[in-house]
């Protein structure tokens, strides 16, 4: 079975079933915004949401993660986490799934990072396709992430009274096959899906003036540019943009001792290239001095460096950095400012 169909009236039954299978995380409301949280009551789940404050990366690359257990005297080390837990991420947008694919590339690139891979192995991703824009900040169409492009176990599309579910892995297939109320999608349902996708083409338009290859080209030429100076003046260096980015993965490593001052844990903690001392060495030399060069670095880590290294853009189009920026720095405006004459 490649495509299945779930009646909306059965959605809650399926959610109850999924909730029992593994630790279950889904989007829910927090004040006027949304967050991924463990689900207690399936009624709390919001399937229509603008991207959550933090992307689901907090579950496979936690804010503060134990790396190592140690004893100073006598010298001893041990695994910090014995067992990783199975979990399901439910209702993930295609942009955030693209983010997971990017993280995969990075952490699988040798030397591999076992902490990430161990968590990733335990993860099941159930996506939901957006049929309209979440808000004006998203640039998913330019990045090509407004439509599903793999990286998930199951993908749901709302076609009216039913969800069509694309089955993309064995793990996903099991979650569909084990319940009797999910059936194989009928031909007419597939026709509806096709029609919805066509309508979507009219709704989602590339948000950048220029096509992606042109954007890449402009980055190649814009290392020195007024655009970065402007960002440098605006940026307050709070690090919000990198914390909320689904493809930012820089970290710091730090030891915490217990009160006996002998046993402790080594953690890795999210860190941001926007911090003042991020690239400063002990001797005092700062290799990315000034907010201008740090903001440029952030953009190059989305549109240039990973393209050269992994043949992948590390902007997913989720719009979080713009949405969360205290200073109103807009990703779409910044990219457009770099390609002013490229309206082709």
């Amino acid at each position, binding site marked *: 079975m490649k495509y299945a169909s779930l009646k909306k009236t059965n959605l809650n039954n399926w959610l109850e079933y999924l909730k029992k299978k593994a630790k279950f995380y889904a989007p829910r409301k927090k004040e006027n915004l949304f967050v991924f949280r463990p689900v207690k009551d399936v009624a709390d789940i919001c399937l229509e949401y603008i991207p959550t404050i933090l992307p689901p990366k907090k579950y496979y690359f936690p804010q503060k993660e134990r790396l*190592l257990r140690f004893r100073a005297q006598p010298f001893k080390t041990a695994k910090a986490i014995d067992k990783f837990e199975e979990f399901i991420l439910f209702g993930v947008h295609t942009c955030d799934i693209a983010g997971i694919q990017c993280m995969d590339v990075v952490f699988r690139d040798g030397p591999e990072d076992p902490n990430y891979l161990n968590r990733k192995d335990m993860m099941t991703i159930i996506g939901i396709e957006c049929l309209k824009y979440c808000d004006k900040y998203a640039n998913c169409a330019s990045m090509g992430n407004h439509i599903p492009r793999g990286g998930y176990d199951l993908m749901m599309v709302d076609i009216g009274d039913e969800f069509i579910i694309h089955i993309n892995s064995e793990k996903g297939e099991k979650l569909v096959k084990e319940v009797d109320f999910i059936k194989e999608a009928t031909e007419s349902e597939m026709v509806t899906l096709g029609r919805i996708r066509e309508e979507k083409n009219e709704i989602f338009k590339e948000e950048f003036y220029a096509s992606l290859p042109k954007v890449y080209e402009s980055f190649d030429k814009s290392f020195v540019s007024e655009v970065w100076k402007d960002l440098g003046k605006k940026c307050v260096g709070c690090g919000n943009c990198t914390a909320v980015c689904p493809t930012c993965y820089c970290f710091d490593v730090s030891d915490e001792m217990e009160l006996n001052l002998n046993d402790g844990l080594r953690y890795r903690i999210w860190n941001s290239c926007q911090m003042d001392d991020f690239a400063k060495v002990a001797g005092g030399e700062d290799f990315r001095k000034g907010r201008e060069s740090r903001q440029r670095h952030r953009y190059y880590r989305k549109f240039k460096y990973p393209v050269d290294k992994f043949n992948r853009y590390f902007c997913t189009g989720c719009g979080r950095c713009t949405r969360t920026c205290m200073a109103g720095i807009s990703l779409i405006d910044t990219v457009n400012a770099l390609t002013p004459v490229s309206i082709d």
Partner: protein
Amino acid sequence: MIDREILLEKMKTSPYKPMQGKIIGSEMLTDKEKIFRIELEDKINLAHEPGQFVMVSIFGFGEAPISVCSSPSDKGYFEITVRNVGVLTDKLHKLDKGDIVGIRGPFGKGFPVDNMFGYDIMIVAGGLGIVPLRSLIRYIMFHRNDFGNVQMLLGCKTPRELLFEVETKDWMRRAEIKFNCTVDTGAPDWKGNVGLITTLIPNVDINPMRTYVVVVGPPIMYKFVIVKLLEKKIPDHQIIVSLERRMKCGLGKCGHCQIEGMYVCQSGPVFNYAQLKNFKGECHEKAI
């Protein structure tokens, strides 16, 4: 399994887990730098390339990248030289024979010794730059017949900061290495050159096409030294440098050591000038 395979296997299964490194000797070299001789658990050899680095841990105080300053031909132990500049290094300076530190590595790409076989070698060391270069010099001494003429230019701020003085005299006495030293500011008993290291370069006698020049020093030194080397017509890929960056993982992930698209901990710390000159602005060591 040979030692290198054991280390690679450890790196693969638990890359963040340090091995036990026992300090089997230590000595203050100046009032700021101390050298440590370290023996790994089960006495395995670090099996490093000259120019590679290790991550040194003291639990509770953290971890930092430190260059190995011994040659892989020194078997059964390796050495590091540490300047006291921060929390971790201050604690390291308080350790002595018998104490244990954590070691991960070796990491990164070392000096391209295979490519340098048969060539003349000129080593330019500024300040602490002599530390990673010592691993190369010791390697060259061990494989002396595989290299052509070897000469060394050494610079530091004052005579008091000169590292490995006894060893340097030994290298000179054995006449296998031509040696020239300069200090920025002299002292009453200093009989050598006074002036910047760049002033030594125009007078050196080298055949540019047959020479590899290896430069290690503070960021500001590279800029000026490389200009002089280019004037001497040394080909870009025969100018070798080693760069210092902040590092937290050594695995090309944490982002601190990144120069534009390059992770220094994985692609470096050793680069040639052909690579360096492509950097657009974040490599402060690039020639001006």
